[in-house]
């Protein structure tokens, strides 16, 4: 187990390095949002999700929806490292003609749904979970959403819906890094007390450190937390996590690292340039 955890820590570091290189090369943005979820994505793709890279359309697979579609780079990196497509294709991210667009887009092996406009993932996931429930399929549906995204009313429609239909095959993970696209969550639209909100909507709630891999693994292994209830993990995270000069800074929602910043970032991640 300890070995698995160390491997996952290493994997998360590799994913971060991919994301930094991809965003640097393409002069793209949303690097902070990728780094924020690197540990969660590593745990999902290397431990929690029942998927088969050799059969992306396996009917009984778990479905993963990146609702915060702007964190595409880190998920593309995970899919490539898991063998859904060649790692070298990551170099085409945001290049002309590439299928790896800046917001996650279906058609890429392993990507279930295109997102980018916020508040779409959870309603789609409710449909998937409902179909699996009614058809007695073992598939589970996992959605990774941002905190800022919870401003969208469509999410609250779905948050009302899931417990009504006892979708305990549904897991929502909130990347709670407390920064949204134009300010701190507390200053734009405060979500606190977020766990209480979900409890009031009849969800089974757990709060975790979104960078603590053993905690994430234990938590994801425990779904459904309560039979008959949808599960939500409020993952307390740090935007830009893993690269000190990017951490907890709104600017890294937008900026692309310079050559010098790239070198510093990779050095901090222990990766080759």
């Amino acid at each position: 187990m300890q070995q698995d955890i160390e491997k996952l820590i290493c994997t998360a570091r590799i994913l971060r390095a991919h994301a930094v290189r991809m965003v640097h090369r393409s002069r793209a943005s949303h690097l902070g949002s990728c780094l924020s979820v690197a540990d969660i994505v590593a745990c999902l793709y290397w431990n929690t999700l029942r998927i088969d890279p050799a059969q992306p359309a396996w009917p009984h697979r778990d479905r993963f929806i990146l609702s915060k579609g702007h964190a595409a780079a880190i998920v593309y990196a995970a899919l490539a490292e898991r063998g859904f497509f060649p790692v070298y294709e990551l170099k085409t991210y945001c290049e002309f003609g590439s299928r790896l667009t800046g917001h996650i887009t279906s058609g890429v092996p392993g990507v279930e749904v295109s997102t980018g406009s916020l508040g779409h993932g959870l309603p789609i996931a409710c449909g998937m979970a409902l179909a699996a429930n009614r058809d007695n399929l073992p598939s589970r549906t996992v959605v990774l959403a941002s905190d800022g995204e919870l401003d969208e009313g469509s999410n609250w429609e779905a948050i009302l819906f899931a417990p009504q239909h006892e979708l305990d095959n549904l897991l929502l993970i909130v990347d709670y890094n407390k920064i949204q696209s134009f300010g701190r969550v507390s200053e734009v639209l405060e979500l606190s007390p977020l766990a209480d909100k979900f409890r009031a909507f009849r969800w089974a709630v757990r709060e975790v450190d979104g960078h603590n891999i053993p905690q994430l693994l234990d938590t994801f292994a425990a779904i459904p937390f309560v039979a008959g209830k949808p599960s939500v993990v409020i993952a307390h995270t740090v935007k830009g996590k893993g690269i000190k000069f990017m951490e907890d800074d709104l600017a890294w929602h937008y900026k692309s690292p310079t050559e010098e910043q790239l070198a510093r970032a990779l050095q901090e991640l222990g990766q080759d340039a």
Partner: protein
Amino acid sequence: MRTAFIEELVHLAEQDERIWLVCGDLGYSVLEAFADRFPQRYLNAGVAEQNMTGIAAGLALMGKTVFTYSIANFPVMRCLEQIRNDVCYHNLNVKIVAVGGGLAYGSHGYTHHGVEDLAVMSAMPNLTVAAPGDPVEARSITRIIASHPGPAYLRLGKAGEPVLHPADTAVEYGKSIVLREGHDLTLISVGCMLANTLSAHDKLTAAGYSVRVVSMPFVVPLDEEAIRAAVTETRVVLTVEEHGVGGLGAAVGECIARFGKAVTFVPLHLNRAPIKISGTQEQLRELQGLSAAGIANSAAEALKRRDSIPQNPAESGEILA
């Protein structure tokens, strides 16, 4: 028309267990026939059209053929981005059904007028856009969109629309139906304007004109062949729709422009300004020039205007200038 729809849907669902029906908390006294019969494939998503449409996309991604159902503009406007991103861009088997399209909810006020749907939905990729002209067309098109792969939009009337076709009329995907033959003028109707269009035909025929009536239930894909025939075989073309700008008139106009053949073309549609007063569907139609008499008058004027234009433009410097 909604009865024809639900009867056909129940019939289809008996044969195809992938068919689901998802409503936005509307459908009292209509949807029970499906809900009671197939409770495992029925869902009331609540007053939440965005979630309803996202759920439909999720179900379709799991292999279902999903009909979403609500009234007038509700299943179209609030959830338009879900229709675009989740349904159309993913080319999913989601069939969006709006009951009471146009001015069917006339006296309910303009929040309940579904009069921009054809324009908005025509802009969506992969989406079939249909508005049947009578219950026979409604039944047939329900069947067609259920089996045609990809998303579709179905604008229905409400209740009590007259049957205008023989019950065995065959409707084909993307095709129109000629109800009356004629050589002076073509009236092309979409959706529930068909009855008034046929009455206008009768008035014009009584006045001595030879009038073709085409029911064109599909705005997308458009029956360009029928439009080309109208342009080449009759002198004047009018489109008739219970809809504002950007609907069938725009589609047919664009098609005619591409043919590059001069024809007198009059798109009859609602004014751009919202209708702020109460009235029955027929009263509001009359106010907007879409009663049978209104259509006939517009047609007669267009014919007179056409007759005043020299048939060979080369003879008229004015036209060439």
